[in-house]
């Protein structure tokens, strides 16, 4: 395949493109789902195709094909060049970039240091067994159960790229995920739910550990739902807040990470534009994006190369409250005089790569959970998340699946789902402290959405963070 991609690069250059990228994805996606006692379809997807980007006078044209045929790839190359050339007169902001020394990955690079039992080596029955154990355990520990859903998902496969740098990159993407959702009915007939999962770039052996076994995941989801049976609605208003690690991750991703993506910055659409070197948060705030974090210790997703052939590395976006760097593709890095960060990612071969996050997280502090609760004093301890959203003006919202009302450092009663909202430039200045425990979360199910490229697997996380004030949407 690499020779066909190299031919495409040569053809694009011969036609007149200033730079050409050619990439091939061949990915396998499997999902298994059991709802109560019913097994849904056992699903296997093969996602395979080639995408070509041609750059011409500051414009980029992208064309793709699901075919591996040399002629079809050449046709896609011609179409990509034609698009770039035809739209070049409309370019006002040129995102050209220089050549780099070639990157050579060698033979398909794999996350062997993280994966002992590759999902492809495990038979279907062992995956069915995982889901059965999750559901059975949830049933044992749940109360007034209306529905139990257990799911297993895996995505793995080869990603190959070559370009006008003459880079040759060949690596294997891998992510697995086991989830449990329990829905219970209150005495008044209202439905509440609890959720638990573990996912990321890991081997199948992770589910044999005492921390992430199906039994632990099933029991935790059931207990979360059970607690929600007696939970109260969160009061609406502005309160002191404590975010649990998973929720802190969504804050890092949704409320800050997206605004640091440099395509928004280059066009002036991010409130972080022209703010490098400015103090945006307290000294407790250090935010990182890394394609290669210490996954063994903290969890997360392994992204050693991006879809423009840049090696994944650690980018300090904010250090002790000061904005340091944006997340780039090659063009935005050149335009904003920063280094590429390995953040140019495409959802699949049907899309061109754009600046996206990999694993985005706050660095930990020095508090224990008890000290964090004490520092919180009276307010909301918000836990787990069902996602969030940010707008270009810096306004954001993210959802906590559950929480506690805390008074004088003591948990008082459980809270139902609640939204936290605000403006990012206000919020970071309200971080008073961080705990010492860092956790990263990733998975197969869900993912990040940007433009029409959804869902892209990412990781996020952090410690628990204490805020002096957050707006909570709830009962007035």
């Amino acid at each position: 395949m690499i020779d066909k991609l190299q031919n495409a690069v040569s053809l694009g250059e011969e036609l007149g493109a200033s730079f050409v990228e050619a990439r091939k994805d061949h990915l396998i996606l499997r999902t298994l789902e059991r709802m109560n006692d019913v097994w849904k379809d056992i699903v296997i997807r093969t996602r395979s195709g080639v995408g070509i980007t041609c750059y011409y006078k500051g414009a980029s044209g992208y064309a793709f094909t699901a075919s591996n045929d040399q002629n079809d790839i050449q046709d896609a190359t011609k179409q990509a060049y034609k698009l770039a050339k035809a739209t070049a007169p409309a370019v006002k902001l040129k995102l050209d970039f220089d050549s780099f020394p070639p990157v050579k990955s060698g033979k398909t690079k794999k996350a062997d240091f993280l994966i002992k039992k590759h999902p492809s080596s495990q038979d279907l029955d062992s995956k069915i067994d995982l889901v059965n154990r999750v559901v059975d355990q949830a049933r044992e520990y749940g109360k007034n159960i209306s529905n139990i859903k257990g799911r297993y998902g895996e995505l793995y496969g080869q990603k190959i790229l070559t370009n006008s740098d003459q880079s040759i990159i060949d690596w294997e993407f891998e992510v697995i995920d086991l989830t449990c959702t329990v829905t219970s009915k209150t005495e008044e007939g209202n439905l509440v739910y609890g959720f638990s999962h573990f996912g990321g770039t890991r081997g199948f052996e992770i589910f044999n550990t005492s921390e992430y076994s199906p039994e632990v995941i099933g029991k935790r989801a059931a207990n979360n739902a059970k607690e929600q049976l007696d939970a109260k609605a969160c009061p609406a208003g502005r309160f002191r807040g404590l975010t649990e690690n998973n929720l802190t991750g969504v804050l890092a991703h949704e409320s800050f990470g997206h605004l640091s993506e440099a395509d928004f910055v280059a066009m002036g659409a991010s409130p972080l534009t022209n703010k490098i070197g400015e103090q945006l948060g307290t000294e407790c705030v250090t935010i990182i994006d890394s394609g290669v974090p210490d996954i063994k210790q903290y969890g997360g997703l392994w992204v050693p190369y991006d879809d423009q052939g840049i090696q994944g590395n650690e980018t300090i976006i904010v250090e002790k409250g000061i904005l340091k760097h944006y997340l780039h593709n090659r063009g935005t890095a050149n335009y904003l005089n920063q280094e590429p960060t390995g953040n140019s990612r495409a959802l699949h071969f049907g899309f061109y790569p754009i600046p996206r996050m990999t694993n985005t997280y706050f660095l930990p502090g020095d508090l224990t959970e008890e000290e964090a609760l004490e520092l919180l004093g009276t307010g909301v301890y918000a836990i787990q998340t069902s996602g969030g959203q940010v707008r270009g003006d810096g306004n954001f919202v993210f959802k906590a699946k559950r929480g506690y009302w805390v008074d004088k450092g003591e948990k008082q009663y459980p809270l139902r789902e609640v939204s936290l909202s605000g403006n990012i430039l206000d919020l970071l200045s309200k971080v008073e402290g961080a705990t010492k425990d860092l956790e990263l979360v990733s998975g197969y199910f869900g993912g990040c959405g940007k433009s029409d490229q959804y869902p892209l697997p990412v990781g996020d996380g952090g410690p628990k963070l204490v805020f002096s004030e957050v707006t909570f949407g709830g009962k007035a």
Partner: protein
Amino acid sequence: MELENLKSELKSQLDTGLKFARSLDSEAQFEIFLYFMNRSNLKILEGIVEANDGIISGNAVKVAKKTSDNKFRVSFTSSSGSDLERIKKNIQECYSTNRSLTVENKRFQSFCYPKNEGKEGILSDELLAITPSDLVPCSQLIINEAKAIDERIKTVGTSMILETGGFAIGNTNGVLGASRLTEFTCDIKIQAMEGNDRKDTYKSVHSRKKIPELEGFGAETGRHTIQLLGGKRLNETMFIPTIWDNEAAACYIRASLGQSSSGLYVVEGLSPLADKIGDRIANPAFTLIDDGQLPTASTTHSCDAEGYPQGTHIFVENGVLKTFLFNSYYSAIFGTDPTGNCSRRGAGIFPSSLPYEQVPSIDISTLRVKPGSKNKNEDDLISDIDGRALYVCSMPMGIFHSQVSTGEFSAVASEVFLVENGEIITPLKSASIAGNFYTGLQKIIEIGGNVQWTPFGVETPSLIIDGLSIVV
């Protein structure tokens, strides 16, 4: 593949695929789905130009094989490409996967049975002739218009998408259907700035027929963005009526009834409406129809994603819940007929970019809220307000992150104004709005007459809802 011949060519491949499937096992049930869509996209964002073009094509196969105790083992496989070689390879993989299964779907009974097809939506030769570079002048018109409105408009971006293609679906019960789509969509995103105050807005138009009249689109969105600058924060928590403009109302309906109407959630015990057929679930003036035969809608096809004819169904009539939406799998469990709502758009609100990878499920076609009898436009609704109200425009953030099962939601509106005694007083920085979707439906106090298309699969007038909890 030309659009004119697309149906016959896809059907021919399906027919060959099904014959091949039967040759593997004459007793197993097979279902094959083929997808073929030309997709072109032009984005111009503050002078950054990105153009994208290609054919999204793929195939999906489902196999159901009866076991000795009369239960079915069901497998689903998909692969990129829709040529015959890949289809056959995928049929073999799905069948082989099925043979290796040790678990059954106790509820599965059969794939869909053939029925007379419905009608396709509007198909356009005009859209077929357009190339991505033809869209450059249209984009520039919108951008120039928006920029000319006010110097505080700092960034303007457009995204135009052209899609032409279709799908075919067949099974060993004799279903052999196909349907096509031509569609143009244009999005505009504007950001205005004054000092450190920023506001951004997003609007969308679409047509299955032609590139719609775009003159005025950029200017109107630009004016709206400027109006939002200078938003206040009141530091108040309150219960006041909320006026939801077309897009905001569409989000409310989509996030609530758009999901809980699904037979999937009903059968699985996840819909709060599951036992409420015949109950009054909304204001008596509220009527909601799911229309799978609206010619202008992108979701309108002659058959759904399992080959059952799409139709029109009254979901809520005068506030009373009448029916749910089904595919054949869940209708059989529920004991009713399918409604032609089998979908491969995926689980999210917006359709998957690779529909052939999605397991057949249930989704709305186009939800249409009947306009109010007084035929009020948005200005009338605002001027009728006595006291304070919140005027919510566009999609509130987080509204689609709500759980179907609980109905509780908590969202943040960024395009929002305070209304007092019939007049818009001031824009607000943002407003947190929380409540329960279903309690809110009971507390609809006015339905406008200004029905509009929205990008959320819902055509609705503006709504006024009381009793929601507000932090501004």
